């Protein structure tokens, strides 16, 4: 249940909303870059193996 934040409700919700949004964006960006690099490296390693064979 939502607590009664009184006259500072907008202040508190703004602080939580922006902070949690920034954390979520940082996690998402880190995971996406990790997945992209992992795929790119797997492709490059496969090409090296193919060229050696």
């Amino acid at each position, binding site marked *: 249940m939502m607590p009664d934040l*009184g006259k500072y409700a907008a*202040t508190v919700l703004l602080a*939580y909303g*922006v*902070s949690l949004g920034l954390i979520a964006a940082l996690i998402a960006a*880190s995971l996406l870059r990790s997945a992209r690099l992992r795929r790119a*490296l797997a492709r*490059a390693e496969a090409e090296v193996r193919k060229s050696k064979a």
Partner: protein
Amino acid sequence: MHPMSIWRYANPVEFLRVSGAALPWFWAGTALCLATGLAWGFFGTPDDYRQGSTVKILFLHVPAALMAINAWLMMLAASLIWIIRRHHVSALAARAAAPVGAVMTVIALFTGAVWGQPMWGTWWVWDPRLTSFFILFVFYLGYIALWNAIDEPDRAADLTAVLCLVGSVFALLSRYAVFFWSQGLHQGPSLSLDRQENVDNAFYWPLLICIAGFILLFLSLVLLRTRTEIRARRLRALQNLQARA
């Protein structure tokens, strides 16, 4: 090398193996601590008799500020390891930590401004702690920009390590400004080894759990991003190899 030596993690393969096994546990700890601490802080703590419900911003502001400073100190340790022992993983860990520290600094500055407006009557003052924190943020931006501006990785690691040493002055200044500059609007530290100086017990425990959550979040992100940087470095090496062939 002794099997318990920390230097074995300087081997990228060993680092990837160990961090891959540890990461799920770090993420689980992060989720547990952040969910518990923030829910307790937001839903389960009373209003402060002077600050009203704005006291709930404490649970974001203090852990974020703590991590903003300590992230830079972690980068300093990693940079020193790079300068002294030339371990690539340590340079990449410092690079990986910078965006995390920068976001923590933004959160600390933003929540501080939002909190300060109703309490101090202003979003911002050039108070010693706020100013040193703002300069720390500029150092984070400069550090990230310098890494991206230099193509040769070892040279980038060298120059960013030097920048990190210089920026450490402001990281430490941000940490200790409240002790040696009594002027300014920012209050003293919220946590102390002396329980008498701590925040009230109603806020103390959820705050500690939030701090644990932010520390685990930082470690999870740094491990994940260091793994990514190691792969990016290997990818670049393979691409150079193919280009020469």
